[in-house]
């Protein structure tokens, strides 16, 4: 039916204002009857006859009212409201069913909404920058190796910025920042803060406009320029109480005065995009000229010109870099560059995990729908008499299906509302996991896209689980339902076959989930089992700072004194200092055995190695294993002696295969070769999952560090030890900023947190799937037992024992489950192959996982079948036969 605009408007109006229109009509009808009666009396009828005739001519008043309403209002909406009212009434009558159905739906829909929010935030939504699809990321060394390999020298950046034709703008930042590398003082107790050096056009290129103040100016990166800083929004809110007057004020960082020139907007979170799991407090312009001579220090980001693409930029850089290198003798790398979209750089690695997560939760929804369809089947079978009666009274099939659909929509709407609450809980919980090393997570929230998605899956679920029983009911011979007792009739078998099929598919899907989760869990356990090369338990780290004017001869006495005092703190067993901890940031230096002849077979890590600057005692405080040689020694390794180098086994393998490296000379550190004094077992450097590459250690007395992390080994709990340690440090140097005393275990956990996160989510979905499948099995078997009560009674009367009945039911349950498990196992194998890139030292067909899945499922199925089986066995033949 199509109405004109005017008519639609009037109809909606009439629909909304039933009462006055009904009153109006009532009045008109009364007048009408009076006219008729008067006319009839005039024609000579008695008053009674006149009224009778008038009423006969008028017809049913109720019917007139109905047709009046139908032609003026919105009859389908009236029907819908009636259906909804009826549904609410029937669901209220069947509260237990409704509660279970809504809960199941809420779990399924809630999980879907939560995961969609995660996927949307991490994968689908554009990055929080202006026209973020134009932003590109450049990796040197084709994106292989540590930070030092993938970054650029300043002169590369300068030349590239001038010569490229692909980008409107290029900008850069320095990724070698440590957490708490700066000390903010002058406002209460000194505080360790984290700052990032960026080029002056950094925010402009990303399209980030300061909330207050301005961005950096071009001159501010020049040598000798006054120090300026831009503050991160949440740091400004917490530390400066959202005071806008801080703009243009002076703050003291590392004893230097900085002018605050701007405050960033809350939408910009540097850590979320570029350093997941880290909070950045302020930004300062990159002091170009001071570090122009240094090695690789910066990452390059560019904004593509209109018309330029990642591919065209890649082709250009492939031609440009060799040309540029020809004019620079001091470049020791060819800067073979990989251009990727910034979006890919930030979240490309997550894509497969997130898609797996999304699929898992989609399977959950499928199981939920199957479960609900099953529940509704049972319910509609019980209601077949009701439907038969309604059909007999003239209800069309479409009306009955419509009524059933209304019921499923009401159920899933209620489930979706509750699910939203669940999702809200999960999402706010996840967003608060600041240590979770996943990008963009802090910006996670339930937004319009999420709600739209919620609506979509709710509707989908309603149709999926609502239509199936609806069609079955509509197609079944309902008159038969009215005539015969519904129990034991042939249509029951029809129902039962379908329900068994549903349960089998449910079990199969749950199997896939369980195997997937099992494989991921096993990978995770394997990761946790990895030999880190150090002992994180009972060790903690504290970022410290001291004033040495950059001179080793000043540094040595300070560090000796710090270590002496720390070792006197009760409970401290060992202490040492390193500039960088494992699993954190890294840098590498050139590293090559003296006299080594380059060959074609050289691997990319033949010429450099990660460098960590450490104090004597650091290796043992970390629990690293010195396999050969000796540790550093303040007395032996002095600024004026030959550079002493400790290497890991990987470096020994690459540089001196099959030889003892102790005493060998190496080009690594300065003009004079260093000498190898020790070899340690490999330490996981960047992640638990990647094997170690060459690494070297040098002493604080002989090389320039990039910060200082104090490592303390103690049996005391970190909360107990921390305050004493911080006090010791503060007594030593009152300017010591308050850093965080972090257990090393926490650093390891941050590193494994993405995997832990995915395993946790997939694992809980699998558990949910298992429970739902168990419920499905229970539902079908229990229903079957109820329907066959009479049959069981007869069999028992004929001599079947209780255990015969019990085993019979359990047997059927297991048959059902095994078919599902068998199908599930086959599909799981394929699914395992599909997720193999996410597995760690685990085969897609890992027998342990499959066996465990089989055992778990068999037990669950047994339990789900045993309960109704026992009920069947308790059937009293006399009662069962009389019962009808």
């Amino acid at each position, binding site marked *: 039916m199509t109405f004109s605009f005017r008519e639609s408007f009037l109809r909606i109006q009439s629909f909304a204002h039933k009462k006055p229109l009904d009153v109006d009509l009532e009045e*008109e*009808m009364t007048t009408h009857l009076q006219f008729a009666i008067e006319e009839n009396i005039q024609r000579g009828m008695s008053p009674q006859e006149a009224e009778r005739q008038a009423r006969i001519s008028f017809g049913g008043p109720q019917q007139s009212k109905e047709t009046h309403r139908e*032609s003026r209002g919105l009859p389908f909406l009236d029907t819908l409201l009636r259906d909804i009212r009826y549904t609410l009434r029937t669901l209220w009558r069947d509260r237990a069913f409704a509660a279970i159905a809504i809960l199941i739906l809420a779990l399924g829909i809630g999980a879907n909404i939560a995961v969609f929010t995660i996927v949307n935030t991490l994968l689908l939504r554009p990055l929080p920058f202006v026209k973020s699809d134009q932003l590109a990321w450049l990796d040197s060394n084709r994106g292989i190796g540590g930070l030092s390999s993938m970054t650029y020298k300043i002169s590369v950046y300068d030349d590239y910025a001038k010569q490229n034709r692909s980008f409107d703008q290029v900008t850069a930042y320095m990724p070698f920042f440590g957490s708490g590398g700066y000390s903010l003082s002058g406002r209460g107790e000194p505080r360790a803060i984290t700052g990032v050096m960026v080029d002056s056009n950094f925010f402009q290129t990303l399209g980030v406009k300061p909330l207050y103040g301005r961005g950096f100016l071009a001159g501010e990166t020049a040598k000798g320029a006054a120090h300026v800083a831009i503050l991160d929004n949440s740091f400004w809110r917490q530390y400066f109480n959202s005071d806008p007057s801080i703009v243009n004020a002076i703050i003291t960082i590392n004893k230097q005065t900085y002018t605050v020139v701007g405050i960033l907007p809350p939408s910009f979170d540097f850590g979320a995009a570029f350093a997941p799991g880290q909070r950045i407090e302020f930004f300062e312009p990159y002091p170009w000229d001071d570090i122009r001579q240094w090695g690789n220090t910066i990452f390059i980001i560019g904004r593509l010109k209109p018309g330029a693409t990642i591919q065209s930029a890649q082709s250009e850089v492939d031609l440009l870099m060799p040309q540029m290198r020809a004019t620079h003798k001091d470049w020791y790398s060819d800067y073979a560059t990989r251009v990727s979209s910034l979006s890919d750089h930030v979240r490309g690695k997550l894509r497969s995990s997130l898609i797996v997560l999304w699929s898992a939760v989609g399977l959950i929804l499928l199981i939920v729908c199957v479960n609900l369809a099953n529940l509704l089947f049972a319910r509609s079978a019980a209601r077949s008499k009701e439907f038969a009666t309604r059909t007999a009274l003239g209800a069309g099939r479409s009306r009955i299906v419509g009524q059933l659909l209304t019921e499923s929509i009401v159920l899933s709407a209620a489930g979706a509302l509750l699910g939203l609450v669940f999702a809200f809980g999960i999402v706010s919980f996840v967003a608060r996991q600041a240590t979770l090393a996943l990008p963009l997570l802090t910006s996670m929230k339930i937004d319009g896209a999420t709600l739209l998605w919620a609506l979509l899956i709710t509707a989908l679920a309603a149709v999926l689980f609502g239509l199936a029983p609806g069609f079955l009911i509509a197609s079944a011979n309902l008159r038969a339902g009215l005539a015969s007792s519904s129990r034991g009739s042939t249509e029951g078998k029809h129902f039962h076959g379908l329900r068994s099929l549903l349960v089998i598919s449910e079990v199969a899907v749950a199997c896939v989930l369980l195997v997937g989760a099992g494989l991921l869990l096993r990978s995770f356990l394997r990761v946790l089992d990895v030999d880190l090369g150090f002992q994180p338990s009972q060790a903690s780290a504290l970022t410290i700072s001291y004033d040495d004017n950059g001179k080793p001869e000043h540094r040595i006495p300070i560090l000796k004194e710090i270590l002496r005092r720390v070792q006197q703190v009760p409970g401290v067993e060992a202490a040492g200092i390193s500039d960088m901890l494992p699993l954190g940031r890294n840098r590498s230096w050139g590293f090559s055995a003296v006299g080594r002849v380059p060959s074609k077979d050289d691997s990319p890590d033949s010429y450099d190695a990660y460098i960590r600057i450490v104090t004597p005692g650091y290796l043992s405080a970390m629990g690293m294993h010195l396999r050969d040689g000796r540790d550093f020694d303040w007395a032996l390794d002095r600024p004026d002696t030959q550079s002493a180098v400790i290497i890991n086994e990987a470096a020994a393998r690459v540089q001196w295969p099959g030889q003892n490296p102790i005493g060998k000379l190496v080009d690594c550190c300065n003009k004079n070769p260093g000498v190898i004094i020790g070899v340690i077992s490999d330490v996981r450097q960047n992640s638990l999952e990647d094997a170690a590459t060459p690494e070297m250690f040098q002493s604080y007395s002989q090389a320039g560090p990039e910060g200082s992390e104090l490592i303390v080994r103690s049996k005391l709990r970190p909360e107990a030890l921390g305050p004493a340690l911080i006090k010791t440090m503060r007594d030593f140097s009152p300017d010591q900023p308050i850093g965080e005393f972090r257990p090393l275990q926490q650093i390891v956990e941050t590193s494994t947190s993405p995997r832990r996160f995915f395993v946790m989510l997939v694992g809980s979905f699998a558990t949910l799937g298992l429970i739902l499948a168990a419920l499905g099995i229970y539902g079908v078997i229990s229903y079957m037992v109820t329907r066959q009560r009479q049959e069981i009674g007869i069999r028992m009367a004929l001599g079947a024992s209780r255990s015969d009945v019990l085993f019979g039911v359990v047997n059927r349950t297991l048959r059902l489950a095994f078919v599902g498990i068998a199908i599930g196992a086959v599909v799981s194998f394929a699914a395992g192959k599909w997720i193999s890139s996410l597995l760690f030292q685990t085969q897609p067909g890992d027998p342990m996982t499959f066996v465990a899945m089989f055992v778990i499922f068999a037990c669950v199925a047994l339990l789900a079948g045993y309960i109704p089986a026992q009920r069947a066995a308790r059937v009293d033949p006399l009662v069962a036969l009389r019962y009808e």
Partner: protein
Amino acid sequence: MAPSEPKLDLLQGTLDLMVLQTLATLGPQHGYGIARRIEQDSGDAILLNQGTIYAALVRLQQRGWIAAEWGVSDNNRKAKFYSITKRGRKQLSTDAAYWQRLTGVMGRVLSLQNEGDNE
């Protein structure tokens, strides 16, 4: 309800047309007047449930073909008076022409059918 729907549609269309025609010839009328007039004009050949006229009236009103106003009848009763609008007259002439054509065609077709039956 569902199976009888096509029949109702036809009746609905006819009733709407009759109401419009009545108002066009008689001028403003109340519901009872319209109903009686239709019964008389049809020579009581159609069985009209007078109550159903109000559904037609509200429908025509919503389409803007007739207007309604509370007034006082000859015998001093408060009643709602309906009158045809300009748009209603236009609609009436369109619908009347359509019906005349349709009845003409139907008559011809049905008489053909009868000849066929006779053979």
